[in-house]
């Protein structure tokens, strides 16, 4: 917020009641943890966690020109989205770099919902609205204040949510969604998340948020459900090697550099940033996002230097202690010719040099079954 005051989500009082430790985040006062980051992290990996992600932005795009508009705006193939399906995509500059990453939900013919990062909500909306004004038959509106967003994540998410939902949430495919009720409250429920686990995200009206939160917590108590904060969200997403805007993605990075080339459907037709991406594909990427595990002692964090044989080749974008693997992990951009699975690197941590090894990502993949 430009005036320096922090916004509160509709779940603020629920966080206070649950003993959440609140911190400023992207202009919001958000819970960073409740019972403890490690405990919350492990709950999500083994049972379930409930997150408040109401700070995310929701932008409605509709009209007969909506599909062609989104097709021209974003790199993924919107024409392939069916009703009740969502996909991951990006908002790119002419240079093919990220303004933001986002989810695109298709609710019906000419009816889409975009979900964007909290910190970029206003600039994203300005970008989208300016382009929509040039496009026939499309309207856009910022509906962020009309939604609270809860993320129920973990292997027990299905058993917790299914008895409360008015439709078959267990039958939803990954990235599928449905609209109905949860415990009598209207909700859009998608099988999406940001933790590497199975789970759901529930979009509800702000005035219903606390009731839904409390109902889920009560329902999940016997399954080991814990309220979880942004701290666990970050360690979980990093283990799953999911990009975070402002860290792995920003307006200097392209999807190819970020290892997100699968989002880019070059052959679908013209879209913003396409030419730059075609050129980069032909020329090769100058740098790549790699995953590493620290083999020495210490934790590399964002901004720490990456060296190969004493030569500076890149910078850490995210790094943390992994509660699941009990070692320090991270992601870094390195010069493309320095990227090699198994390759030894060293990390500059507060004047010390710590050995690390490049490893495949994601670090964590949930067990099948």
């Amino acid at each position, binding site marked *: 917020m430009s005036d320096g005051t922090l916004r509160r989500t509709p779940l603020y009082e629920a966080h206070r009641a649950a003993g959440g430790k609140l911190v400023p985040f992207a202009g919001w006062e958000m819970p960073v943890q409740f019972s403890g*980051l*490690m405990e919350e992290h492990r709950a999500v990996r083994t049972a379930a966690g409930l997150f408040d992600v109401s700070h995310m932005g929701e932008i409605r795009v509709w009209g007969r020109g909506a599909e062609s508009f989104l097709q021209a705006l974003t790199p993924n193939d919107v024409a392939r989205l069916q009703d009740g399906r969502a996909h991951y995509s990006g908002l790119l500059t002419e240079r093919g770099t990220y303004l933001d990453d986002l989810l695109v939900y298709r609710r019906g013919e000419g009816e889409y919902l975009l979900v964007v990062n909290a910190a970029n909500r206003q600039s994203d909306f300005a970008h989208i609205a300016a382009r929509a004004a040039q496009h026939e038959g499309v309207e856009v509106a910022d509906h962020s204040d009309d939604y609270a967003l809860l993320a129920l994540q973990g292997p027990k998410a299905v058993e917790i949510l299914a008895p409360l939902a008015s439709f078959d949430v267990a039958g939803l495919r990954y990235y599928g969604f449905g609209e109905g009720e949860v415990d009598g409250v209207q909700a859009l429920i998608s099988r999406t998340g940001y933790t590497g686990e199975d789970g759901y995200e529930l979009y509800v009206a702000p005035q219903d948020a606390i009731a839904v939160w409390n109902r889920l917590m009560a329902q999940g108590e016997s399954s080991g459900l814990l309220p979880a904060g942004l*701290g666990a969200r970050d360690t979980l997403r990093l283990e799953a090697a999911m990009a975070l805007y402002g860290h792995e993605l920003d307006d200097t990075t392209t999807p190819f550099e970020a290892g997100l080339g699968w989002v880019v459907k070059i052959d679908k037709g013209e879209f913003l940033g396409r030419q730059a991406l075609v050129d980069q594909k032909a020329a090769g990427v100058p740098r790549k996002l790699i995953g590493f595990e620290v083999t020495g002692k210490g934790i590399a*964090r964002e901004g720490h230097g990456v060296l190969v044989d004493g030569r500076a080749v890149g910078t850490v974008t995210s790094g943390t*202690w992994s509660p699941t693997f009990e070692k320090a992990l991270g992601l870094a951009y390195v010069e493309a010719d320095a990227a090699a699975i198994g390759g030894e690197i060293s990390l500059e941590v*507060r004047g010390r040099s710590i050995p690390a090894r490049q490893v495949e990502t994601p670090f964590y993949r949930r067990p099948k079954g």
Partner: protein
Amino acid sequence: MYPSDYLYTQEHEWVRVEGDECVVGITAFAQEELGEVVFVELPEVGSKVAAGAEIGSIESVKAVAELYSPVAGEIVAVNDEVVDDAEILNDDPHKAGWLVRLRLDSKDGIDQLMNAEAYKAFLDSGES
């Protein structure tokens, strides 16, 4: 919670004076604030440190904090058990989770530290 025979700093270290030596650790408040500590880096035994000098670091899952020496002196021991297993610091920051033992250059400066009452008041004041 805060032992009455310890002294405390505004950087949330505790000091237990034993003759011309003292033991230093971080307070339960500091440990709480950091969250679960996973690594501790401590100075070499035998190194001379100035009051307020950075002598190590404490890494939790999400943050790193510097450890400062509250007093001037020589490091005569470090707690290797905590270096090997940082859980000890999480469980018992005031006793088993001690970090370094120093031989004091002089007792100057000791009287600048807060007693338990003053430290609690400092925490309650919200200036921490």
